[in-house]
């Protein structure tokens, strides 16, 4: 588990503090505590565990001698090997992790890779501009698979990617997408698996998401797409989208060459918040109705963790889960920075928190929850 180290650090500090620590140790402890609220929480949890352990071990009936025998029953050789395996995994043990790394697994990459990606985005944007100048009439057709783009893949965990237009994509485990942004349009292709999209606003560059031969136009929305065997399941969490059938790539190219206009695409279905549609590989809508948003998004993380993020950012994180988006109407409030951990399925806790801020008003509307301020917003 990821927090194991933090927990062990907290345990070590807790024991150190019971041992008449010197001034230097105290100062080091203070620095440790100040590293994050998680450190504080973990230390408090350790204090609690300390109290609980006294109570829990009081019920232990073994005598000291029996305990000594119990401890002796643990062969030293076994203990040593277990320790070695745990701390220095053999090459065999490391293999699965390496595999996850190769597909861009989230946990093992650290933060070196996203930074590298950012520069690649910029570099690619420059290249794209050149390509567009060379073949202007082709720009409206969907790029062929050979066209460059940035591929993002999730490993064994859900992977969250924030693109440079402020679009937030959550890729379910083992899913992959290719992102192609240029100055005129934004394209994301879901290559495999499922993803949740919360599209950043950019009126000048419309967002199109393609899944096989289907394309989804976004109008300021949060939606989920699941790709399986050529079919696509599109679920709109909030807002609305249009799903289109794309012409085949060769048809599009031929038409563009002959007439100089892009091939038309067929509008398949319009979806609103809470609706879902299934489109098969031939471009037929095989199911259209009310969505089970909880079931569709069950692969998303159970909690929302953030550190020093704005209220607006946090509100958006919740919107991946709920058909009633949280909308922050006041710029001052939107910029306010907070930290914390919330249960993702329970926006009420977050709403209650925002509601507890002075001068904040919460309006529950049929299609959204609006945060605004009454007056004196500067006092937030």
């Amino acid at each position, binding site marked *: 588990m990821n927090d*194991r180290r933090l927990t*062990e650090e907290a*345990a070590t500090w807790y024991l150190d503090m019971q041992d008449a620590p010197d001034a230097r140790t105290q100062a080091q402890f203070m620095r440790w505590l100040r590293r994050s609220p998680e450190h*504080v929480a973990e230390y408090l949890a*350790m*204090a609690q565990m300390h109290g609980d352990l006294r*109570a829990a071990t009081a019920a232990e009936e073994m005598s000291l001698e029996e305990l000594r025998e119990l401890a002796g029953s643990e062969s030293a050789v076994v203990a040593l090997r277990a320790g070695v395996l745990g701390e220095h995994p053999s090459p065999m043990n490391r293999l699965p992790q390496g595999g996850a790394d190769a597909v861009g697994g989230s946990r093992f990459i650290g933060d070196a890779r996203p930074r590298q990606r950012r520069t690649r985005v910029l570099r690619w944007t420059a290249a794209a501009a050149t390509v567009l100048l060379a073949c202007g009439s082709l720009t409206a057709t969907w790029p062929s698979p050979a066209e460059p783009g940035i591929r993002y893949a999730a490993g064994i965990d859900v992977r969250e990617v924030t693109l440079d237009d402020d679009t937030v994509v959550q890729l379910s485990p083992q899913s992959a997408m290719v992102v192609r942004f240029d100055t005129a349009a934004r394209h994301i292709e879901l290559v495999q698996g499922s993803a949740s999209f919360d599209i950043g606003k950019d009126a000048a560059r419309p967002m199109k998401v393609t899944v096989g031969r289907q394309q989804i136009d976004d109008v300021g929305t949060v939606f989920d797409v699941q790709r399986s065997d050529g079919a696509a399941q599109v679920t709109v969490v909030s807002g609305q989208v249009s799903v289109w059938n794309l012409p085949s790539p060769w048809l599009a190219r031929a038409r563009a060459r002959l007439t100089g206009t892009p091939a038309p695409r067929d509008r398949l279905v319009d979806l609103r918040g809470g609706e879902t549609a299934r489109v098969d590989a031939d471009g037929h809508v095989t199911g259209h109705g009310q969505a089970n948003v909880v079931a569709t998004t069950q692969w998303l993380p159970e909690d929302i963790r953030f550190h020093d993020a704005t209220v607006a950012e946090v509100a958006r994180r919740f919107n991946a889960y709920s058909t009633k988006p949280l909308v922050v109407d006041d710029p001052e409030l939107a910029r306010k920075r907070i930290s914390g*951990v919330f249960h993702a399925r329970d926006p009420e806790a977050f709403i209650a928190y925002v509601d507890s801020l002075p001068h904040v008003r919460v309006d529950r509307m049929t299609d959204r929850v609006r945060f605004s301020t009454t007056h004196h917003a500067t006092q937030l």
Partner: protein
Amino acid sequence: MSAETPQSWARLLADKGPTLANYFLRRVSHRWDAQDLVQEVYLRLLRSGDASAGAVRNPEAYLFTVAANLVKEHAQMQQRAPISSEGLEEVIERLATPCHAGADVDRALRRQRLATLIGRLSPKCRAVLVMHYRDDLSYREIGERLSISSNMVKKYIVKGLAACRQGMARYE
């Protein structure tokens, strides 16, 4: 705050730490409240400032003082139990007495789960933990009985604490 904290105060707070932490993490009505309070404790720790960092001679007592103050303010805000004139000592005393029937059941369940978790620890780790917490033996005394170094004893306690903490976190 801590600069004026008398030594006895620091002792009291350190002793009452587990009770206080327990209140923090479990007794508040809403799960978010606990996180909110942790958040606030953290902010106050930061606000204590680097300049005065030298003045914080006992960070643990300081941490618990901040926490106790917050709990007091929190109780006042909730107006469930106004504690206007009481001192921190009383606040902490009050925390030690569970205010609702559910707390007892909850505590019993928690203890039971914890006992199961202790049973799953490696034999040595389990023996060390019981000797330390039940019999109040020092690291050295435990080490002598089990023929391991004091340092190893401490390591086993850390491992045991961490394993129990993570095991319990999965229940909550």
